[in-house]
């Protein structure tokens, strides 16, 4: 690996853009993701910028148990994110459906059936620190040796 690639790997791991999408949760995880923005946890000190625009995102936080309203839409949203990209499932809902995975409900978990999920953060809801550490764990992986792999 060239020196240039090493520098690129380092610099890019400190500049990550995050978008979040709620595909049918109870809102509890959304507010814990928002709490990551607060000065106490301060996700931006690590160079991670949350601004919910899929077209410039590197990491997509998927929250919720996949409701019928998101069929086709989640896939097309995922396609709109430029490469390289990863998705992180936040909370129990995208992993198993949590309490909503019962007979007669309308949901269709897990989200991994619909888009590739790179990491999962269980919890109902997970604490902001757990979400933060998952994003930080993925940050160096997203862009690692991107040019080498592309070749």
């Amino acid at each position, binding site marked *: 690996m060239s020196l240039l690639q090493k520098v690129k790997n380092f610099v890019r791991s400190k500049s990550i853009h995050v*978008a979040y*999408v*709620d*595909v*049918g*949760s*109870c*809102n*509890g*995880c*959304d*507010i*814990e993701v*928002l*709490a990551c*923005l*607060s*000065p*106490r946890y301060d996700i931006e000190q690590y160079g991670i910028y949350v*601004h*919910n*625009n*899929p077209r410039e995102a590197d990491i997509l936080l998927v929250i*919720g*148990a996949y*409701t*019928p*309203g*998101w069929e086709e*839409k989640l896939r097309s*949203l995922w396609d709109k994110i430029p490469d390289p990209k990863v998705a992180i499932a936040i909370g129990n809902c995208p992993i198993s459906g*949590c*309490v*909503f995975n*019962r*007979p*007669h*409900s*309308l*949901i269709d978990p897990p989200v991994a059936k619909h888009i590739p999920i790179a990491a999962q953060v269980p919890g*109902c*809801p997970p*604490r902001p620190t757990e979400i933060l550490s998952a994003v930080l764990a993925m940050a160096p992986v997203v862009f690692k040796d991107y040019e080498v792999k592309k070749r």
Partner: protein
Amino acid sequence: MKRTVDVSIPLGPVHPCWKEPARVKCETRGEYVLSAEVELGYMKKGIERIMRGRPWQEVMFLAERVCGICSVIHNMVFIEALESISNIPVPDRAALLRVVVNELDRMQSHILANFSYCYTIEHETLGMYLLDVRENVMDELERITGARVTCAYIVPGGVRFDLRDEDALHLRANLAAIEEEITRYTGMFENGPLIALRSRGIGVLTREAAREACAVGPTARASGMPETDRRLRHPTYQKLGFTPVSREEGDNYARIMMRFQEVLQSIALIRTCLDTLPEGPIRGGGIPGAGETAYSGEAPRGELSYFIKTDAAGRVLDIAIQTPSIMNIEACCHYMLKGVASLADVSSTFVSSDPCIACTER
């Protein structure tokens, strides 16, 4: 009459400023909004369908997960509906502790709503200040109930945990700090010239329109309808001598200021509860039985109603939930958004009515 519509602009479902997916379709002439329409259906999980036929012990946790932001009030209304079916008495200490936790939940919800608004009008500094204060409120919630969100604190016949004396001391100290900060930020919001430009006179909901649209909660109270507050009809709040506040303007500015005022009011209510907290048991016990009832409570966003029918074993045979946000979203789309001068104000007006899509669709 023929209308000139230039373009129909959809906003959402993924929008930089909105926490949850909803789609607002605006018919505009230039940037002037002629009419708006909301399209829901991104969050429909069918919670009421799951609830039917299940024992109350399970439905209790499902009811909390109707809405994660205002989970305490869903818990409280569901349990108090069960109590009113089966005539289960609540000890005085537990009744006051319920008010303490409910008001803490209201505070964090209102502060989050105001953060969203400040973020939407791109006053990020004030937004971050507010989010910092909210963490203090979440700390208190966690110290009392054991969880930040969805804490299942209220059970039939009482509450789960007692408030220890050292926790009460800590709560008082933290409330003093929160009050000081919120007063400061209210002043910043009140006197900020840029905030006034983006907020005053925008998205006006008159008293007549609010009544016609059945607006509830802070949205209605900002339009001069204090009588919509369900806390007036709650026995514990009546004992505490609660009187709602209201404003007359009905614009975005009034709705945000309304929430700031209610946060200060909640702090005063919690202090009164702590001062008058009697010694005694926190759980009286009691078994939910057969019956049906309709019960309402005041969620942070407005009136929340549960209709419940149970059998002798405490199974929920039928349940219907009416949440406040659906009325406020209607009021927002059909009255506030009409005549908004620019598209930037559409998202801020929508956020100022504090829509909670998760509990709207369930």
